[in-house]
């Protein structure tokens, strides 16, 4: 197979990869911040907050990312009457989606801590908040971090969908190269190889960190 088009178009792939990484990084970052709030709302004793968070999470998980992307991309500028950069809208859509999944990861992580831990802490006279800070959350984090790494990987892959609204990510750039070179197949293989390299590298890194966490922690 002939990859000689790369001479001319390699910069396209670099630019696209940068956008994909930016999108995923900020998507996960905002997703985690929002997700923490959603998880706290869902675990709170206030039934109104609980309902709001649950409704949001169910709505996001119950609709396709593509639909959410269109809604944000076309709806948000109209709703607020502002102009946004395409990339910003992409990040917003991805974050709003990711937040729901992150919230569930955090909630599950906290609830997976044995309830005897909370009872033991409370029986010593610790207020709920103290028990959460020193006993529950440190143990929950060990369950949360690996799942959060997976979410990051999923997000990088799913971010390819933003190409349909014309955000210049890796997938979009690969399509452009296909159009310019009249070659339907090879440019996609290059994009696939780049995606794979990023994700494979990241998952190895996460596995390494996870392994380190497990050996450093003599607690299980």
């Amino acid at each position, binding site marked *: 197979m002939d990859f000689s088009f790369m001479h001319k178009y390699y910069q396209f792939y670099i630019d696209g990869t940068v956008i994909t990484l930016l999108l995923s990084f900020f998507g996960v970052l905002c997703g985690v911040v929002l997700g923490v709030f959603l998880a706290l709302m869902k675990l709170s004793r206030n039934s109104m907050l609980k309902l709001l968070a649950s409704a949001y999470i169910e709505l996001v998980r119950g609709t396709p990312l593509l639909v959410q992307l269109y809604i944000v991309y076309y709806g948000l500028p109209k709703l607020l009457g502002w102009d946004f950069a395409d990339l910003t809208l992409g990040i917003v859509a991805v974050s709003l989606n990711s937040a729901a999944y992150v919230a569930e990861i955090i909630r599950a992580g906290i609830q997976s801590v044995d309830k005897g831990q909370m009872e033991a802490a409370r029986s*010593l006279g610790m207020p709920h908040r103290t028990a959460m800070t020193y006993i529950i959350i440190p143990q929950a984090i060990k369950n949360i971090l690996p799942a959060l790494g997976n979410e990051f990987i999923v997000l990088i892959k799913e971010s390819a969908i933003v190409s349909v609204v014309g955000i210049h990510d890796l997938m979009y750039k690969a399509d452009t190269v296909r159009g310019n070179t009249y070659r339907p197949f090879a440019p996609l293989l290059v994009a696939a190889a780049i995606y794979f390299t990023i994700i494979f590298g990241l998952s190895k890194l996460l596995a390494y960190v996870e392994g380190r966490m497990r050996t450093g922690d003599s607690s299980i």
Partner: protein
Amino acid sequence: MIQVSNLNKEFGKLHVLKDINIKINKGEIVVIIGPSGSGKSTFLRCLNLLEEPTDGEIVFEGASITNKYNDINKQRQKMGMVFQQFNLFPHMTVIENITLAPIKLKKMERAAANKVALNLLKRVGLEDKAFVYPNQLSGGQKQRIAIARALAMAPNMMLFDEPTSALDPEMVGEVLGVMKELVTEGMTMVIVTHEMGFAKEVGSRVIFMDDGRIVEEGYPKELFSQPKHPRTKDFLAKVL
């Protein structure tokens, strides 16, 4: 020291505790026995409000802890609790397990708290385990650490919820030994247990519970040798 009046607890339609009345004085060793599901653990957990009673009043050292304006955290510091499943904090070393509450709640200096902890570890015979994590300990050792952790808050009363039920038989003795020592030091204790020999030996009062009620109570010698109520007779015939 603690007075329980008309205590009721319902889980949905299940009526687990029915009109419990009891007064426990300072220095008493109250042992609660009874079949599974009789409500003895629930009753014990109501004493420090780990279970919220549906109805009734509990007064501890003059404070009505069932009053909704009462801050239970204050009284819990005075009532140590030991669980069947130990519930040590797995992400902390033994000494951190013991010192966390005194440091955070009593604002004790770390050095002072460590000193208290090492003394307690010596008492339970585990001073060499101060810096290991709970997963490196046997069940009996874990439970002795759990007792030390509760004692670190210098409680006036200790609650034991089947402290030896999750242990291998050869480890029961070491935990009971630590508890006996507490008895000789005059600690007020409420113990839910299936160890009838231990109940007979250390109890100053035995309470037999069945179906959410206190069926019979009395001195261990009398209750074990001459139970009055047919349910007690039936139960003791099966376990002794």
